[in-house]
C-alpha cells in the first residue's frame, strides 16, 4: 500500500506538463534512434546526455530513460519493414516480421510488437513498484561486505555470460575495471595512471567511452561493408485479425516472463531474451514450420521479451545500485553526473526522483504505444535518408555531444580512441558489454571493499563473519566455473548495445 501511495506521488510529479513533455521528447528521440541503424541505445543515451544539461536532474533522467526504452520500440520498425534490425535486440524480429511485411501484413506485425512491448514494459514496471521498497529496505540493512560480494557476483555474471567465451568476457571486464581505476585514488588521493594529465585525474568520462565504443566502433565496422537498403512495399492496415490476436496471447505472456526474469541478471544483454523467447515459442508451437515464414508468434514473443527485459533491467539499478546492462550503466553514469546515487538511498533521499521516474516509465510506455503506430509512415520516410548523410550527421553529433560535456577536446580525442578500441574488439568478436558494466561496477567494488576493511580494522578474516557475503562469493565462483565449463559459444549472450 505504501508503494502505491508513493507511486501516486510519483504520478503527480511525472504528470506535470514540463515533465510530460520531456518524456514525450525522450520517447520520440528514442524511437528515432531505434529506427535508424548505426546508433544503438548505449551510444544514443550517452550522446544525448549533453542535451539534458539544461534540464533538472529528474527531467534529464526521465528523458534518458525514455530514450532507452524508446529504442526498443523503434528497432522493430526497421526489422519488419526492411529486414535490418535498428538495434541488435530487434534482430530476431526480422525472422518473421519481414516475411509478414512481404505478405502485406507489416501493419499487424508492428501492431502486435507495439502492444506486446507495452504489456511487457508495463508488467516489468509494476514489478519494479512491488519490489522497490522491500528490496531497497533490505539493501539498506546489508553492509559494505555484502555489497562488495554482490558486486563480485555482478562481475562474474558479466564476464561469464557476456560474449562468446568466458576468457573474452574476462579480458574486456578487466579492461573496464582497469579503466575505472584511472584517476585519483578515492581513499589515498594519489593519481593512478593519469600520466601527468590533469584531464585524467577524474578518469575517462562515461560519455566518451560509451559513444566511442558503441557508436563510433559500430560506424567504423560498418564502413567496411557496402550498405544497401531494401524497402517493404506497403505497410497494410495496422490491425490484427482475431486469430492473430488469439495466437499472440500466450507468446506475449511467456515473453513477458522470460524478458523480465532475464532483465534482473547483469550481463545477459537484450539479445538473449529475444532469441530464447523465439526459440521457446517455436518449440511450443503445434505448427513450427510456420516460423520464419511470417508467424505472428515469432514477432509477439521476442518483442514483448525485449521490452520486459529493458524495464526489468532498471530494477537492480534502482534497488541495489548495480547496472545490469551497458545502457543502464550509462544511465547510472547520468544519475551520478546529476549528483544522484542510484540504489537504496535514492528512495530515501530523493523520493521525488525515484518515484517520479518510475511513474514516467508507465507514462512512457503509453506514449510509445500511442506514438509509434500513427508515426510509422514518418519513420519509413526517414529510413530513405542516404547512409552517408546519416553517418556524417552521427559523427558530428558524437563530436559535439562529447565536447559539450566538459568543453574538452581531450574528451573528443578519447572518444575517437575508444572508437578504435571498439572497432578492434568487434573484429576480434570480444563482447563490449562487460567493459561498460565494469566501468561502473569497478569503483563500487573498490569503495565497498575499502569500507569493509576500514570497519574490520584491516582484518581480512572479517569476511568469515559475514555468511551472506560468503554465500555470494560461492555463487560467483559457481557462475565462473559453469561458464568456463560451457566453453566458447557460437551465439553470444549479452553482446548487444542494450
Amino acid at each position, binding site marked *: 500500500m505504501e508503494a502505491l501511495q508513493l507511486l501516486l506521488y510519483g504520478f503527480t510529479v511525472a504528470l506535470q506538463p514540463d515533465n510530460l513533455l520531456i518524456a514525450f521528447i525522450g520517447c520520440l528521440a528514442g524511437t528515432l534512434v531505434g529506427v535508424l541503424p548505426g546508433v544503438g541505445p548505449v551510444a544514443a543515451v550517452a550522446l544525448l546526455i*549533453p*542535451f539534458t544539461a*539544461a534540464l533538472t536532474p529528474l527531467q534529464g533522467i526521465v528523458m534518458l530513460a525514455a530514450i532507452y526504452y524508446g529504442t526498443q520500440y523503434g528497432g522493430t520498425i526497421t526489422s519488419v519493414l526492411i529486414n535490418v534490425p535498428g538495434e541488435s535486440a530487434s534482430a530476431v524480429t526480422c525472422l518473421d516480421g519481414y516475411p509478414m511485411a512481404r505478405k502485406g501484413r507489416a501493419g499487424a506485425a508492428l501492431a502486435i510488437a507495439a502492444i506486446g512491448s507495452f504489456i511487457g514494459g508495463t508488467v516489468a514496471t509494476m514489478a519494479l513498484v512491488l519490489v522497490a521498497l522491500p528490496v531497497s529496505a533490505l539493501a539498506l540493512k546489508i553492509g559494505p561486505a555484502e555489497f562488495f560480494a554482490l558486486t563480485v557476483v555482478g562481475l562474474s555474471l558479466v564476464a561469464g555470460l557476456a560474449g*562468446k*567465451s568466458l*576468457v*573474452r568476457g*574476462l*579480458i574486456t571486464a*578487466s*579492461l573496464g*575495471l*582497469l579503466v575505472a*581505476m584511472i584517476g585519483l*585514488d578515492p*581513499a*589515498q588521493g*594519489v593519481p*593512478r*595512471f593519469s600520466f601527468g594529465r590533469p584531464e585524467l585525474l577524474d578518469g575517462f568520462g562515461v560519455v566518451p567511452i560509451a559513444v566511442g565504443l558503441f557508436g*563510433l566502433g559500430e560506424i*567504423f565496422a560498418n*564502413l*567496411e*561493408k557496402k550498405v544497401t537498403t531494401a524497402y517493404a512495399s506497403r505497410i497494410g492496415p495496422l490491425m490484427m485479425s482475431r486469430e492473430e490476436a488469439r495466437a499472440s496471447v500466450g507468446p506475449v505472456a511467456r515473453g513477458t516472463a522470460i524478458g523480465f526474469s532475464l532483465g534482473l541478471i547483469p550481463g545477459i544483454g537484450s539479445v538473449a531474451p529475444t532469441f530464447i523467447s523465439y526459440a521457446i515459442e517455436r518449440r511450443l508451437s503445434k505448427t513450427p514450420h510456420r516460423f520464419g515464414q511470417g508467424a505472428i508468434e515469432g514477432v509477439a514473443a521476442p518483442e514483448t521479451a525485449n521490452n520486459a527485459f529493458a524495464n526489468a533491467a532498471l530494477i537492480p539499478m534502482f534497488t541495489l545500485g548495480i547496472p545490469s546492462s551497458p545502457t543502464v550503466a550509462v544511465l547510472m553514469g547520468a544519475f551520478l553526473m546529476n549528483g544522484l546515487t542510484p540504489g537504496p538511498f535514492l528512495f530515501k533521499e530523493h523520493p521525488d526522483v525515484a518515484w517520479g521516474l518510475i511513474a514516467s516509465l508507465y507514462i512512457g510506455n503509453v506514449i510509445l504505444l500511442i506514438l509509434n503506430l500513427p508515426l510509422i509512415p514518418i519513420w519509413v520516410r526517414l529510413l530513405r535518408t542516404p*547512409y*552517408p*548523410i546519416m*553517418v*556524417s*550527421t552521427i*559523427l*558530428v553529433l558524437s*563530436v*559535439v555531444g562529447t*565536447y*559539450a560535456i566538459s*568543453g574538452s*577536446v581531450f574528451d*573528443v*580525442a578519447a572518444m*575517437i580512441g575508444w*572508437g578504435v578500441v571498439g*572497432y*578492434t574488439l568487434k*573484429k*576480434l*568478436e570480444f563482447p563490449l558489454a562487460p567493459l561498460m558494466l565494469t566501468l561502473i561496477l*569497478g569503483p563500487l567494488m*573498490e569503495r565497498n*571493499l*575499502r569500507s569493509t*576493511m*576500514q570497519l*574490520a*580494522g*584491516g582484518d581480512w578474516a572479517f569476511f568469515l563473519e559475514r555468511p551472506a557475503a560468503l554465500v555470494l562469493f560461492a555463487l560467483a565462483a559457481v557462475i565462473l566455473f559453469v561458464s568456463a565449463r560451457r*566453453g*566458447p559459444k*557460437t551465439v553470444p549472450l549479452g553482446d548487444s548495445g542494450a
Partner: protein
Amino acid sequence: MRSVVTLKHAAVLALVVLGIYIGVEASKLRILLAIGPGAGFFPLIFAAVLVIASISYLFERPVAPSEVATPAIWGSSRLLVVLAALASVVVLINPLGFRFTSLGLQIVVLVALGMRNIPLILVTAFVGSFGIYSLFDEVLNVRLPIGMFGL
C-alpha cells in the same frame, strides 16, 4: 581466417604488454595498507587477470568468426579517411572553430562514403555544422569553439 589469427596474436601481445605495464606501475603504489587495500591493490589484481586471460585466449579454440576479418580494400581506405578526418577535428577545432571544422569533416565523410551530388553535400554539411552550432549555442546554451577568427 589467417588475418584473424594474426590480429589475434597482435591483440594478445598488446594486452599482455599492457597488463604487465599496469602491474609494474601498480606495484609502485601502495598495495596493502594497515587498514586494507592500497591504491595499487585493485590495478595489480585486474592487471594479473588481464594477463592470464589474454594468454588463455591464445589457446582458446577458435569460434568461427561471423564476419570475414579481412576488409575489402575500399572498406579500409574509407575507414582510414574517416579516422583521419576525425583526428583533424581534434587538432583544428580550437583554432578554426566548431563550424568550419565540422563543415570540413562532413564534406570529407560524405565524399569518402560515395556521395557525388555536390549541392546536396554542401547543404548537408552546412546544415550539419552551422545548424548544429546554432542548436547548441542558442537553444541548449552550450558554448562551442569559435576559433581564432571568431567564426
